[in-house]
C-alpha cells in the first residue's frame, strides 16, 4: 500500500472532518476563482466591445451613458444628433467606417437598432475581414426587414421569414405601445460575436424613422395639434465611427465637440474610467473577503491536520516501531494535507467556474457581458498557486512535528 493510499485511507476514516475541511478550502477557492475570473472576463468583455469603435458621437450628456447606450445596448441614449453630421463624418478622409444608429423600440426587451446596411461592413479589429458574419439568411433589403443578433435568435426562437411587432421604448414594459401597423420580418441571423451586438436586432434606419414619424402624426392628430408642415430634419441617436488610425481619436473627438452641439466619446477610455472608478474597488473588496476566507480555510486545514496528527501519535509510533523512518511518517502526514488542500482547490475550481457558467446567462441578459466561464486567467493561476503554497505550509507544520517526535512515549497511548 503506497503512502498516498494510506493517507487517503486515513482521510476517509474521518471523512466528515476531511469533507468539512476540504469544503472550507473549496469555498475560499471558489470565491477567489469567481471574483478573479469575473474581473478578468468583465475587463476583456468590456474592452472587446469598447474596441469595436474608436468614437461614438451623440447628443449632449454623459459620455459614459452614450457609450453604454450605443455600444453595450444598456442605459438610455443621451439625445439625438443631426443626420447631416453623420454625412459629414462619413466623407471625412480620416474615417475608415461610420454608421448611424437610431433607437426607440424593442422586441421582448431586445433593442431594435435602426442603421444602414453598411453597418455590417464593420472591419474586424485586427483588420482581417468583416466583424459581422451571417449565420443564416441575408442582410435586409426592404425597410421592415431585420437581422437578429445570435443571442436574440436563440432567446426568442425567431427564424428567417418570421414576423414580429416592435414595442415602443428601450425596455420591455407591460402596457407599452406595440407598433401593430409595422410588422418586422426576419431576413438574417448573425453568427455569435461574443459582444453585446448579439443581443440586438438590426433594422433599417428608414423603418425606425417611419414608425416614429407616423406615431407622432397620429398623436398630434389625436391631441388636435397642427401637423408639422414640412418634413423635419432627420436625426440619429448616435454615430459609430472606426478611424483609419486609433491615434486620431482625441483630435477627432475634440473637433466634433467644438463643431457640434453633441459630444464625442472614446469608448475604450470611458470604459477604463468606469472600471477603475466603480468596478475595480468593488472587486478589490470582494478579493479581500475571498482572501480572508482562504486564510481561515488554511488555518482550519492546519488545525485539522494538527489534531489528526495528535490523535494519531500512537499510529505514528506504531509505524516507527515497524521500521518506518521519520521521513516516511512525516511524508504520510504531509500527503494528507496535500490531498485535503488539493481536493479543496479542485472542488473550489469546479464550484467557482461552475457557478460562473451558471451565472453567465443571467449576466449576459442583465449586462450584455459574454463571460467565458471555464477560461483561467493568469491572475487566477497565481491566486491558486498562492493557495496551494499556503496549504502546503499548513500541511508541513504537523508533518515536521511528527518528524521530530520520538515514538517511545506514544507507543504506550491506548486506542
Amino acid at each position: 500500500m503506497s503512502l498516498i493510499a494510506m493517507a487517503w485511507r486515513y482521510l476517509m476514516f474521518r471523512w466528515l472532518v476531511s469533507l468539512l475541511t476540504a469544503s472550507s478550502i473549496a469555498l475560499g477557492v471558489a470565491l477567489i476563482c469567481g471574483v478573479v475570473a469575473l474581473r478578468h472576463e468583465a475587463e476583456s468583455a468590456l474592452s472587446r466591445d469598447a474596441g469595436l469603435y474608436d468614437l461614438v458621437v451623440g447628443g449632449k450628456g454623459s459620455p459614459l451613458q452614450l457609450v453604454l447606450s450605443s455600444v453595450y445596448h444598456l442605459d438610455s441614449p443621451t439625445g439625438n444628433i443631426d443626420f447631416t453630421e453623420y454625412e459629414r463624418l462619413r466623407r471625412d478622409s480620416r474615417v475608415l467606417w461610420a454608421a448611424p444608429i437610431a433607437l426607440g423600440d424593442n422586441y421582448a426587451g431586445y433593442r431594435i437598432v435602426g442603421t444602414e446596411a453598411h453597418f455590417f461592413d464593420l472591419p474586424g479589429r485586427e483588420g482581417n475581414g468583416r466583424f459581422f458574419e451571417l449565420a443564416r439568411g441575408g442582410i435586409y433589403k426592404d425597410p421592415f426587414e431585420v437581422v437578429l443578433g445570435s443571442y436574440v435568435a436563440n432567446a426568442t426562437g425567431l427564424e428567417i421569414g418570421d414576423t414580429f411587432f416592435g414595442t415602443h421604448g428601450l425596455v420591455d414594459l407591460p402596457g407599452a405601445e406595440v407598433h401593430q401597423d409595422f410588422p418586422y420580418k426576419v431576413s438574417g441571423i448573425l453568427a455569435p460575436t461574443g459582444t453585446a451586438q448579439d443581443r440586438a436586432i438590426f433594422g433599417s434606419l428608414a423603418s425606425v424613422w417611419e414608425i416614429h414619424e407616423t406615431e407622432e402624426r397620429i398623436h398630434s392628430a389625436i391631441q388636435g395639434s397642427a401637423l408639422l408642415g414640412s418634413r423635419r430634419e432627420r436625426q440619429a441617436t448616435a454615430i459609430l465611427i472606426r478611424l483609419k488610425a486609433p491615434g486620431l481619436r482625441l483630435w477627432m473627438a475634440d473637433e466634433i465637440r467644438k463643431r457640434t452641439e453633441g459630444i464625442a466619446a472614446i469608448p475604450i477610455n470611458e470604459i477604463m474610467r468606469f472600471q477603475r472608478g466603480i468596478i475595480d474597488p468593488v472587486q478589490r473588496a470582494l478579493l479581500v473577503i475571498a482572501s480572508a476566507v482562504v486564510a481561515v480555510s488554511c488555518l482550519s486545514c492546519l488545525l485539522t491536520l494538527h489534531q489528526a496528527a495528535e490523535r494519531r501519535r500512537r499510529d505514528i509510533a506504531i509505524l516507527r516501531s515497524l521500521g518506518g523512518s521519520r521521513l516516511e511518517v512525516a511524508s504520510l502526514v504531509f500527503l494528507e494535507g496535500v490531498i485535503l488542500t488539493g481536493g479543496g482547490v479542485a472542488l473550489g475550481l469546479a464550484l467557482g467556474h461552475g457557478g460562473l457558467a451558471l451565472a453567465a446567462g443571467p449576466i449576459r441578459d442583465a449586462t450584455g457581458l459574454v463571460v467565458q466561464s471555464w477560461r483561467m486567467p493568469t491572475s487566477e493561476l497565481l491566486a491558486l498557486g498562492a493557495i496551494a503554497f499556503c496549504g502546503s505550509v499548513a500541511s508541513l507544520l504537523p508533518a515536521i512535528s511528527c518528524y521530530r517526535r520520538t515514538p517511545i512515549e506514544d507507543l504506550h497511548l491506548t486506542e
Partner: protein
Amino acid sequence: MIRLRDVRLSLGDPAHGSCARFQLPSFEVDQGEAVALTGPSGCGKSTLINLIAGLRRPEEGEVNVAGADLGVLRPSQLDRHRGAHCGMVFQTFHLLAPFTAVENVAIGLRIGGMRKVAIRERAREVLERVGLGHRLNARPDQLSVGERQRVSIARAVAGKASILLADEPTGSLDPQTGRDVFFLLREVAAEEGRCLLLVTHDSALASDMPRRFDCSGLVQRSGDPQRKEKVAR
C-alpha cells in the same frame, strides 16, 4: 544475536522530579533462543525491549543486535535495522484502525521494504498461518481481542524478522486466549529459528519458557538504597 554490555541509560525527566537510571552489565541471547523477561512493573523489562529494538539509545555501553552496534547507527539506519530484524508485539495490539487485517500486515511489510507484488500474498499467507484466513478483510474493531493479537503476531513475523520482541502480549487477554497466543508466538518463533523475548507477569507462562531473565533491579530510582547489579548467564 543480541548482546548488551555495560548499558546505562537515564529514564524519566529530572525536571519533573522523576529521575531513574537503567543499568545492565551484561545480557546475551543466541539465535533461536526464547527468553521470558520477568519482574515487577517498572523494573526495566520494556526498556530492555526498547533498547534491543533501537527505540531507545543507551548513554553508555554497547547494544549489538543481529551483528550491528545500534549505538553507532544513524536514526534512519536504526529505523531500517528495526524493520529488517525486529518484529514487535504489544500488549494493546497496536493495530492501525482504518486498515483491515491483511492491510495491517501488508503495511508492516511495505515499511520493511518488501517488493510490492509479493506483499499481499505474504500477508495473506501469514494470516492464514495464525488462523485468520477467514478474517483477512476485517478491520480491528470487527475482530475479537484474541484475533487482534493474532494479527499483531502475523505482522511481527511476516517480514521474516530474526528477533521477536513481545511486550506483555497476553496482558489484555483472558487466560485461555492468553495461553493460545503464547503458544502461537512460541510456534512461529521456533518455526524459522527466531529469537523470542517475551515480557510477562504470568509466572506460569514464564516457567514454560526455556530461559527466564529476572529484570528486577535494572532500574534504580533516585534515593533507592539498594543498587542491584545483575549478570545474566
